[in-house]
């Protein structure tokens, strides 16, 4: 009896040992979903739970657009300017704005009188700038056109800094501006801006701060 029992135990141990070696490629045990044992409920809810999805309110705080105008580059004449602008309106008073624009300088009086003299190479005449500004709506209001039409508007001032690349050199530039924003609709605005870019240069002989004033007309959309 004892021998038979130990044989059975030995066989069981061997079998379990074999199964130990095979455990690497053992098929995964099938999981059988448990069936509900209780009786089916008498009232089965037929109405699916109502999912309330709150509509999203679109925030139209960003403004994107372009502008075109004239830039007076000190000592280099007045020339056309074109650029793009993007703004984020933080509050009804304050906005943050960025600009990238380009113009091409003309000739200095010296070059006009003495055509053989070149102050800046042709490729260096490109005047490119970027600016990071903060703006403040000083005088918000409405502009009336005739009897039955009113447009929201704002007179704003901006101050900022950025880079002016002129004569193949990047210079740190400050800028100050004033502008008027006229909203044709809630999403379309016309801008009239005057801005001064001030930087230090020694292009014409001595080191000095130059004022480069631009006057532009722009169109932007709010989204």
């Amino acid at each position: 009896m004892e021998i038979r029992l130990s044989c059975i135990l030995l066989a069981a141990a061997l079998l379990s040992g074999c199964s130990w070696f095979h455990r690497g490629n053992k098929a995964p045990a099938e999981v059988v979903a448990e069936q509900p044992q209780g009786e089916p409920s008498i009232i089965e809810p037929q109405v699916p739970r109502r999912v309330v999805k709150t509509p999203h309110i679109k925030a139209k705080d960003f403004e994107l657009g372009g502008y075109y105008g004239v830039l007076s580059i000190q000592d280099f004449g007045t020339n056309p300017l074109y650029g793009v602008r993007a703004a984020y309106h933080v509050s009804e008073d304050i906005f943050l704005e960025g600009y990238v624009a380009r113009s091409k300088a003309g000739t200095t009086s010296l070059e006009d009188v003495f055509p053989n003299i070149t102050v800046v190479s042709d490729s260096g005449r490109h005047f490119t700038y970027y600016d990071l500004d903060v703006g403040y709506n000083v005088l918000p209001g409405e502009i009336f056109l005739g009897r039955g039409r009113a447009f929201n508007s704002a007179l704003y001032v901006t101050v900022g800094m950025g880079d002016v690349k002129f004569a193949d050199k990047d210079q740190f530039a400050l800028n100050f501006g004033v502008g008027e924003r006229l909203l044709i609709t809630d999403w379309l605005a016309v801008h009239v801006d005057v801005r001064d870019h001030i930087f230090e240069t020694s292009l014409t002989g001595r080191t000095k701060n130059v004022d480069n004033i631009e006057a532009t007309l722009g169109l932007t959309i709010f989204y």
Partner: protein
Amino acid sequence: MRRLLALVLLVQALHGGLANAAAKNLVLVVTDPYLEMHSGPGRGYPVIYVIGRDELVTVLYSRTDWFKVRSLRGNEGWVRRADLARTLSESGEPAPIPPYPDFASHRWELGAGYGVYNRENLVTAYADFGLTTSLDVEFAVQQAFGTLDNRYIASIGVRHTFIPEWKWFSPTAGIGTAYQYIQDKVPPAPLQKSNEMAYVSVGARGFITRRFLWRVDWRHYVVFNNQNVYEDLEEWKFGLAVFF
């Protein structure tokens, strides 16, 4: 001709998008005695319509703290956030007007500022993502304007805010890595045009008002070069940022 067709399709798609958006606007019930509608999104614009209690308004879109709404009669005007937040949704729950972002737990921050980097003027723009209330990841893109060279610096780092519950002034410290590209202006050319760098920083931040905050940061960079010399740079900057 093909461009024109593309433009027409684009306009149609936009129009379709707007039409769909119009169908899913939020409708709210006025619970105050009346709700004032201004002619523009600002405190000074006159009140042009008034909506009475229990009437419905459709919210069209928002601009800063003002919401453009339309009454059932078709009148449109701007309502301030605080007034609209006191209305109810059609199911009787409080209106789902997003609350003002909380300074203590804000996630994103976008800012720009002025500084001095290696005794050169510095323009900086940065984005900041808060992992927790006291630990954030900062990405910065900067340009330094020198007389001899211009430098472009990109950096990424982590920053710890020591006492985030101090709203107006809270010291910070951080570490990170950066890359600088040197653009030569005056000969001789630099020995290396670009470097990897590492930095430690100490600074402070504070709440200003609404969505604004200020930051001051001082950084000490160690420049990894192949000249076998120890090179380090200093930078300080002041920035203004908005948070979301």
